[in-house]
C-alpha cells in the first residue's frame, strides 16, 4: 500500500476521531485518565533526561568558551536557549514518541486483534473517537506542563553542572539566564510542543488502530508508530522553525 493510501486513511481516521462524541461526560473522565497515564507517567523520564541534557549542554558550552574575551554568562544564556528552543520541545518530543507512542500503538493494536474494537463498534460507539480523542486531548493538555518542567529542570541541571565543576559562577550563570531574553521563543516552543503531542498520539493510534493479525503485528505496529512519529516530529520541527523563526 502506497504512501497516499496511508495519508488518506490517516486523515479519514482523524475525521472520525474528531466527530461528535457519544457522551461528553464519559469522554471527560477518559481525558483525565489519559492525562495521568500518558502525561503524569512521563514526568519522571522527562525530569531525568532534561536534567542531564541541561548539565551536558552547560559543560560542552563551557568547554568551547576557552577564549577569555567571551563572557562566561553566555554559558547560562546558551543553556537557556538550547533547552527552550530545541531540547525541551524536540528532544523531549522524540523521547515521548518512544515511550508514549509505543504504548498507545500497542494498547490500541491489542484491542484491535482481540476484537475489543469490534465490540465497541457493535455497541454503536465510534471506537476511533472513544479510544483516540481522549488520548490526544490528554497529551496535548499536558504537553505544556512537561515543557515547563523540562525547561526548569534542564536549567537546574545546567546550573548544578556548571557551578559544581567550577566552569561558571552561580552569578554568571543566572545573569546569562536573564540576558537578552526573547519571550517569543516560548510561543515558538509551545507551538512545537502542541504539534508534536498531536503527532505522537495520532500517528501511533493510526498504526495501532489498523493492526491486522496477532501479537507479532502489534509489535510491528508499535515499532512503526515510534519510527514514523519521530520522523514527522523532525519534519514538523523544520517546518515550524522555518515559519516562525525566519
Amino acid at each position, binding site marked *: 500500500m502506497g504512501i497516499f493510501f496511508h495519508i488518506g486513511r490517516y486523515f479519514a481516521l482523524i475525521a472520525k476521531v474528531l466527530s461528535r462524541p457519544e*457522551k461528553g461526560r*464519559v469522554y471527560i473522565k477518559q481525558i483525565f485518565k489519559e492525562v495521568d497515564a500518558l502525561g503524569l507517567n512521563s514526568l519522571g523520564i522527562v525530569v531525568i533526561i532534561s536534567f542531564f541534557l541541561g548539565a551536558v549542554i552547560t559543560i560542552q558550552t563551557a568547554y568551547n568558551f576557552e577564549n577569555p574575551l567571551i563572557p562566561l554568562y553566555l554559558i547560562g544564556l546558551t543553556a537557556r536557549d538550547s533547552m527552550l528552543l530545541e531540547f525541551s520541545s524536540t528532544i523531549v518530543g522524540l523521547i515521548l514518541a518512544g515511550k508514549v507512542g509505543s504504548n498507545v500503538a500497542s494498547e490500541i493494536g491489542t*484491542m484491535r486483534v*482481540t476484537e*475489543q474494537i*469490534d465490540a465497541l*463498534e457493535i*455497541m*454503536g460507539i465510534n471506537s476511533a473517537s472513544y479510544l483516540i480523542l481522549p488520548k490526544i486531548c490528554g497529551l496535548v493538555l499536558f504537553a505544556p506542563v512537561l515543557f515547563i518542567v523540562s525547561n526548569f529542570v534542564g536549567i537546574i541541571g545546567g546550573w548544578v553542572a556548571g557551578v559544581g565543576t567550577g566552569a561558571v559562577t552561580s552569578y554568571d550563570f543566572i545573569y546569562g539566564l536573564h540576558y537578552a531574553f526573547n519571550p517569543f521563543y516560548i510561543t515558538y516552543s509551545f507551538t512545537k510542543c502542541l504539534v508534536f503531542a498531536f503527532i505522537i498520539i495520532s500517528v501511533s493510534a493510526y498504526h495501532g488502530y489498523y493492526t491486522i493479525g496477532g501479537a507479532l503485528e502489534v509489535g510491528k505496529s508499535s515499532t512503526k508508530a515510534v519510527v514514523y512519529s519521530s520522523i514527522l516530529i523532525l519534519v514538523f520541527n523544520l517546518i515550524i522553525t522555518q515559519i516562525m523563526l525566519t
Partner: protein
Amino acid sequence: MIAVENISKSFGENNVLKNISAKFEQGKANFIIGQSGSGKTVLIKSIVGLHEVDEGKIMYDDRDFTNMNIKKRKKIRKEIGMIFQGGALFDSATIEQNIKFPIDMFTKQTTEEKLERVNFCLKKVNLENVNHLYPDEISGGMKKRVSIARAIALNPKYLFCDEPNSGLDPKTSIVIDNLIKEITEEFNITTVVNSHDMNSVMQIGDNIMFVYQGEKWWEGNKEEILKSDNKELNDFVFASDLYKKIKKSIS
C-alpha cells in the same frame, strides 16, 4: 427477524460469500454451521456491519441496514448484542465496568440503577461476587458468561454469537448453550449463532444453515440434519466417530 438477501463479499480476488440468502427468526436460536474457513465469521460480521457487503441486502425487521446512514446504523447497533469468540472483554476494566459500559454510554440511569442492572445481568448468567475482578482473573467459561451479560445489558433485540463454545470444555459448553437458549426465549431475541460444534447445534439449534465454500449449502432443523443425504453436510456433521454411530443407529 433478520433477513439477508443475496449477499456477496470478496476480499480482493477471494470470493468469500457467494449470493447468500437466509432468514433468522425471532425467539429462536438460528445456527450458521460450516467448516473453518467456510465464511461463517465473515457472514456474521457482514450482518452486523463490521464488513461492508459487495452486493445484497440485510434487513433488520424490514429496516434496510445496508443502505442506511451511519446515524441510523448506530441506532440499530444499540439493539444488537454480540458475543465474540475470545470474549472481547475490555481487559483494563473490571467485570462490573465491562457490563456497565454500554449502560453508561447510552442511558441516563442513576449509579444505583446501573449497579442493579449489572447485578441482574450477572445473576442471569449465574455469576455473583465477581464485580471487582478483572477479565484475566476469571476462567474462560466465566469470560464467556460475562460476555453474554454485557451483550444483554441493554436488552438487545438481536444477539450474535461467534463461536461461543470455542476453547471450552464440554460441560461448560452446555452451560453456555443453555444460557443462550434461555435468554433467546425469555427475551424473545433473534439469536444468530456461528458454530462448528455439533453438540451445540443438537443441544439448542432451532434453525440451521450450513455454509460450504462461501455458499448456503443446506438449511433445515436438527431433526432434518440427521436424515439429510447432502454429501458435504454429512461429511461435516458425521465427521466424528460418535456422530457416525448416531447416523448408523438412525439408518
